[in-house]
C-alpha cells in the first residue's frame, strides 16, 4: 500500500473583538499603566474585570484601581516557550492576585528557574515599552521585594479609549486526506480518475472517501471513471475570491464523469460562459504539473438527455 499523504495546514485569521465598556476600560488602563478591576455588590474586586457577576449575573461597571504589585497564588514552569508566548526564554505561568484585588490574573513571570518561584512570592508588573491597549502591555511579572505599590486613584475614565482589538489566531495542523483520497490523488498524477465502488449499493464514489455514506460500509474496489462526463448543473461566478487565481466570470459546474455515482466539481472552459448548459458533454484539460484538470471543455458530442443525469445533479 502506498504512503498516505500528509501536508501542513495553517489556519490563520485576524479576528476582531469589540470590547464592551468593561474590557475597554481595562485595556485602555493598561495602555496608561493603570490596572482596573471591577467591584461586585458584595465588595469583591475582580481583576481582570468581567462584565457580569459570576455569582449573581448582575451587570458590573464599578471600576476600581488596584496596585501593580501582588502575590503569586499558583504557578507552573514553562521550560520551552512557544511562538507568541509572552517571553522567549523559559518562564513561569503565574496566577497573580494584585494588591487590592480578590481574584488572580494569569500572566508570565520572568524568573531564572523553577527554584526561584514559589506560591506566596511577591511580584510586580514589568510594563511593555510600547503599549497599545492589550494584555501584552504587561510584558510580564518580575520578582519584587519592595513595598506594596499604591494605586494612583484613577477613575477609569480615559481620553481616546480602546474599543476593539485584533486577536490574530493561528492553528497549525498536519492534514491527511486518508487512504482512499491518497489513492485518488496519486492516480490523478497519471491523469486517471479513480473512484471506489460500494460493495452494497454498487455506486461509485468520486472522489472516494473509503466508505459509503449511505450504506456505512468500507469501500475498496477501484473503478476508473471518465475521462468524459456531463455537466449536470452549474453557476456562473461573477465575484472574484481573494485567494483564488481564476478570472471572472467563470463557470463552476457539477460534472458527472461517465461511470461515477455522483458529480464532482470543476470549471468549464473552451466555450463562452453564457453558452454552458445542463447536459453539456465535457472532457478534462490538463496542464503541466497540475494535480487536477485545469478545467473541462466541450467534447462536441450531442448534449446528454436530462433523464440520463437527473439523479446526478
Amino acid at each position, binding site marked *: 500500500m502506498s504512503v498516505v*499523504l500528509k*501536508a*501542513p*495546514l495553517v*489556519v490563520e*485569521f485576524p*479576528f*476582531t*473583538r*469589540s*470590547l*464592551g465598556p468593561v*474590557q475597554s476600560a481595562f485595556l485602555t488602563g493598561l495602555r496608561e499603566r493603570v490596572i482596573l478591576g471591577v467591584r461586585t455588590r458584595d465588595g469583591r474586586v475582580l481583576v481582570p474585570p*468581567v*462584565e*457580569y*457577576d*459570576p*455569582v*449573581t*449575573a448582575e*451587570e458590573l461597571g464599578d471600576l476600581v484601581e488596584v496596585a501593580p504589585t501582588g502575590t503569586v497564588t499558583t504557578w507552573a514552569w514553562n521550560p520551552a516557550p512557544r511562538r507568541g508566548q509572552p517571553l522567549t526564554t523559559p518562564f513561569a505561568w503565574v496566577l497573580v492576585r494584585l494588591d487590592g484585588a480578590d481574584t488572580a490574573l494569569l500572566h508570565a513571570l520572568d524568573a531564572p528557574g523553577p527554584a526561584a518561584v514559589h506560591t506566596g512570592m511577591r511580584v510586580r508588573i514589568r510594563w511593555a515599552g510600547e503599549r497599545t491597549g492589550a494584555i501584552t502591555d504587561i510584558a510580564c511579572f518580575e520578582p519584587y521585594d519592595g513595598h506594596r505599590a499604591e494605586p494612583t486613584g484613577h477613575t477609569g475614565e480615559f481620553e481616546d479609549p480602546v*474599543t*476593539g482589538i485584533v*486577536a490574530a489566531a493561528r492553528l497549525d495542523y498536519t*492534514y491527511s*486526506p486518508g487512504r482512499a*483520497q491518497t489513492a485518488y*490523488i496519486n492516480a490523478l498524477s497519471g491523469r486517471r480518475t479513480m473512484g471506489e465502488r*460500494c460493495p452494497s*449499493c454498487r*455506486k*461509485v*464514489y468520486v472522489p472516494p472517501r473509503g466508505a459509503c*455514506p*449511505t450504506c456505512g460500509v468500507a469501500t475498496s474496489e477501484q473503478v476508473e471513471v471518465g475521462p468524459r462526463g456531463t455537466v*449536470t*448543473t452549474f*453557476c*456562473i*461566478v*461573477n*465575484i472574484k*475570491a*481573494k*485567494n*483564488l487565481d*481564476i478570472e471572472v466570470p467563470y463557470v*463552476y*459546474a457539477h460534472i458527472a464523469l461517465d461511470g461515477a*455515482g*455522483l458529480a464532482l*466539481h*470543476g470549471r468549464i472552459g473552451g466555450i463562452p460562459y453564457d453558452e454552458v448548459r*445542463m447536459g453539456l458533454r465535457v472532457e478534462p484539460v490538463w496542464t503541466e504539473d497540475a*494535480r*487536477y484538470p485545469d478545467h473541462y471543455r466541450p467534447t462536441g458530442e450531442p448534449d446528454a438527455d*436530462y433523464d440520463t443525469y437527473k*439523479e446526478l*445533479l
Partner: protein
Amino acid sequence: MSKEPVAVVGIGQSRHVAARRDVSLAGLVREAALRALQDAELTWADIDAVVIGKAPDFFEGVMMPELYLADALGAVGKPMLRVHTAGSVGGSTALVAANLVAARVHGTVLTLAFEKQSESNAMWGLSLPIPFQQPLLAGAGGFFAPHIRAYMRRSGAPETIGALVAYKDRRNALKNPYAHLHEHDITLDKVMASPMLWDPVRYSETCPSSDGACAMILTDRAGAARAPRPPAWMLGGAMRSEPTLFAGKDFVSPQAGQDCAADVYRQAGITDPRREIDGAEIYVPFSWYEPMWLENLGFAGEGEGWKLTEAGVTELDGDLPVNMSGGVLSTNPIGASGMIRFAEAALQVRGQAGEHQVDGARRVLGHAYGGGSQFFSMWLVGDRPPDS
C-alpha cells in the same frame, strides 16, 4: 407517561445590524436574554438551565464561547450546554431546550443563539485552504447556486420567482424593527437590476451578514399558567440529518427535510399543511429557497412551489404568508437565524408580532437548515396547548 407540554413565554432579540461594535459577545447575548426575561417577567433565578447555540467557532474565532458566556447568561451553578449543527443550529438549540422541558428534566429553560459576523469573515471560515484539494469557489452562494439552477430546470419556474421572494421579504422587513435590512426604497426592478453574483443568484437575492442574538424562555404547563402574556405552545418538533454529499442525494428537496417535516406534522396531527398551517418562517438565505422549501415542507407538490410565490400566496396578506419578519434574506446572524425563525413563529401565534402580525395566526411553522442542506430542524407552534 406523556410528554410535558412546552410553552414559549419569553422572546427577546437584539436589533440586528451589520456590526455591533459597542458590545462584546457577552454584551450581545445578554441583550437578547434580558429582553426574553422581561417578556416573561422572570429573573435569572427562575431559569433552571441554559442551552446555547451558534455556528462554527471559526466565525468569531472564540473556541467554545459558551464557557465565557456563562456569566452573562446567569448560567453559573446551572446546567449549560452548547448545540452545534451549522446554520440550522438556532432551531436545533431551541429543540434541545424544548426536549429538556418535555422530558421534565427542567421546568424553565433559557435558550439562546447568536452570531457576531462582524468579528470575522464567514466566507473565509467556510473556505479553508485544505491541502490536495482544488480551490474553486468561495462561500455559500456558489455552493447553493447550482442547486437553484437544478430546481429551475426541474420545476420549469420562470426566472422572476427569486426576485419576487426577495422583494417580498425586504418589504416585510420594513415592518419588523429588529430586522437588519430596512430598504425603504426597494422595488422589484431594483432587485432584478442588482448584479448577478453566482448566476442565477443576484446580489439582492442573498442574505446579509449580521450581528445579532435571539433568546427564548421555554417552560412547562405550570410555568405557562404564571406567564403574563399568552404563550406559544409547541405542537411538534423534529430534527433530521443526512450526509452533505452522497450518491443519490437530492439537493433540491433533501430526504431529511421531507422526513423532518413529516415527523412534525405527525406529532401535531397535521394532514394538510397548506390548509391547516397559517404561516411559516422558513430559512431562506437565497431567494429561490422559498419555492424549494415550500415543496420540501409539503406546502406544495413537486415543481409547484413557485406557483404559490408567483400568485402572492406567500405575501404577508396572502393565504400562506412566508417570512413575515423579513426572513434570513433581511437578517442573518448565522447561528441565531434558525432561532429567529422559531421565535418569529411563536410571536405570531402569541399575537405579538406587531406590524408584521398575521391576523388570527393559530399554527405557524418555524424552520431551519444548515451545512450542505444536511441538518434540518423545525417546530410547529400553536396558540393552544397540544391535545386541547
